[in-house]
């Protein structure tokens, strides 16, 4: 190994930016290519880290990438700088940690959204299909046109799993329901294109949909706005977005990435590794109910959803995960 050179450089850099970089187990957060303020996945992680900072008064290091070549580079640099634990966002970083983590056995790594089987890596995965199933049920019960729709960011298995869970939940309530599924684009811009999101939502409304579920990062904000403008309803994603358009956002499919980051930072170095499944049972996914949407979710709807939730947790009701075999029974 020629780790000496980078180490020497790191040391000089730390000396140079003294006060900014304390060695010794500052936690670190490495965002995925979407960037810190993507209104979605990465921003949720940022919020979790900020919550930890506010509550503990600690400090953490964070880094955004510009290029995929920086994945390994940054993960290494964070570990070398003594950051611990290092939280790494995104399934595309699974190969990154497979390469980097074995070289730093004393550093704990946390990977969000994928599994890496190494002794010093905690892999946090979410059961997005289960949460989507519940909001799909709510949508099917709330629709007046018997047509609901979905706006995804990019047509990748992760997002199709949202769509598939949503469709399964809706069909469980009403097997004849009409479900329109569209995706925003194929470039990273697809995650942050609210104008296009709004256009797609309006096109779906013109086809009869009156409830739209957006799983498209920042693009979703345009979808929610379009629904509010048209006097129709929408479903938010990742964090609780009910407050954005009270009376229009029916509910939000929660994916508590912030909680996963917060937990990792709180547990600190030497955190428990292995697979952490953030599913309905663990409270990692779910649907949101608060004062902004209480009027739209009737007791009857809530009962039905809670029953399904209990059945899923108990293992009596299985929601198919599209990612396991690339097939969706509800399409």
């Amino acid at each position, binding site marked *: 190994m020629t780790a000496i050179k*980078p180490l020497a450089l790191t040391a000089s850099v730390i000396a140079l930016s003294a006060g900014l970089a304390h060695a010794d187990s500052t936690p670190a957060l490495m965002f995925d290519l979407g960037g810190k303020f993507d209104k979605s996945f990465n921003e949720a992680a940022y919020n979790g880290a900020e919550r930890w900072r506010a509550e503990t008064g600690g400090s953490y290091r964070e880094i955004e990438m510009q290029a995929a*070549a920086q994945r390994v580079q940054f993960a290494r640099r964070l570990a070398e700088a003594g950051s611990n634990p290092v939280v790494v966002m995104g399934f595309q970083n699974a190969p990154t940690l497979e390469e980097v983590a074995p070289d730093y056995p004393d550093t704990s790594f946390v990977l969000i959204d994928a599994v890496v089987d190494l002794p010093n890596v905690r892999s946090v995965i979410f059961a997005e299909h289960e949460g989507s199933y519940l909001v799909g049920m709510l949508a099917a019960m709330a629709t007046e046109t018997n047509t609901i729709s979905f706006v995804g960011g990019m047509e990748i298995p992760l997002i199709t799993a949202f769509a598939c869970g949503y469709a399964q939940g809706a069909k469980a309530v009403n097997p004849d329901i009409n479900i329109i599924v569209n995706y925003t684009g194929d470039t990273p811009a697809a995650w942050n294109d609210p104008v296009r999101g709004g256009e797609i939502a309006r096109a779906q409304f013109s086809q009869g949909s009156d409830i739209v579920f957006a799983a498209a990062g920042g693009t979703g904000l345009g979808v929610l706005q379009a629904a509010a403008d048209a006097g129709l309803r929408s479903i938010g994603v990742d964090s609780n977005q009910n407050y954005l358009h009270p009376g229009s956002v029916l509910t939000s499919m929660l994916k508590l990435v912030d909680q996963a980051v917060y937990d990792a930072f709180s547990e600190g170095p030497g955190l428990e590794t292995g697979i952490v499944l953030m599913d309905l049972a663990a409270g990692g996914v779910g649907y949101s109910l608060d004062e902004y949407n209480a009027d739209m979710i009737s007791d009857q709807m809530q009962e039905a959803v809670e029953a399904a939730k209990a059945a899923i947790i108990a293992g009596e009701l299985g929601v198919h995960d599209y990612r396991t075999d690339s097939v969706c029974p509800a399409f």
Partner: protein
Amino acid sequence: MSAGRIPNWADVTLVPLFSVALAFALSAVLIWAIGESPWDAVKLMVQGAFGSSYGWGYTLFYATNFIFTGLAVAVAFQARLFNIGGEGQALLGGLGVALVCLYIPWPHWSLALIAASLGAALFGAAWAIIPGYLQARRGSHIVITTIMFNFIAASLLGYILVNVLRVRGSQDPASPRFPAEVALPKLHEMLALVGIPFSRVPPVNISLLLAIFMCFAVWFMLWRTRLGYQIRAFGESEPAAEYAGISPARITIYVMLISGALAGLMAVNSVMGEQQRLVLNAVEGAGFIGIAVALMGRNHPFGVFLAAILFGFLYQGGAELALWMSIPRELIVVIQALVILFTGALDNMVRMPIARLFALRGGR
């Protein structure tokens, strides 16, 4: 060319140098304005990019990408064709590399490198020939068609990665990993042969030599062959070239083929040399950086080489900046944009005073 009063050497050295200096000065003001020390930032960037073989390795890795895409834009621009489809052509080049590496069992990396280079160039060229044909035969403007083809390429790659190449059961839209036999030798392995120690970490690899070779090849093609003469003549004046018996349609298509092939070759470095698999959005804007690199390098292969190193420095130095100072990623993009603005758009702002200076000296 356009600057009659400036000696050629000053046009290719002084003007870009002053432009870059101005861009850096303005960046320093920006860094100071957000409450950081510009001096520390510059030190960190230079240290991070050139202060160790580790930094050099990353700088050269990024530079390799930019040489390919910069050459692609430069060649097209010699014929006054603005190929801004380097992004899409490089994406398709990546597909070519992946197919060659995945579906043919190679006994040795050297054979694989030749075949993958051909695959990358072929796919890149194939993607560029359609806009080239539309321009040559139908008069559809190349700027419009090439940029549209970037999106089509992204969609095509998305489809192929999700539905064809993806490992079954994996949620990552990426091809399987290439076999170990096709791993390209990294720079540290090559330098070790001559006894020079170099950091093992950075992904810089033998493609760097390929890129430098392509610089020479492009220079030779443009200034030492009949085709190159025709390309430059066509670029200077289409009617004159046509009068001289040069077919505009033929030149347009040839130039786009060469340009697309060069852009496609970028994938040899990023896909085969670094990622070792094809991932979504593998080009990451290098196609667009190529435009800036060509602008700055005055569409000359040697200029492209230097400009690519500068942008490699901005990428790697910028990464260090983001890592160790609280300077957000966006500011690094701003610095890059300033460099582009000053070297490309505000070219005359620098050139005219310099021209005046030379005129003064000449008049004395």
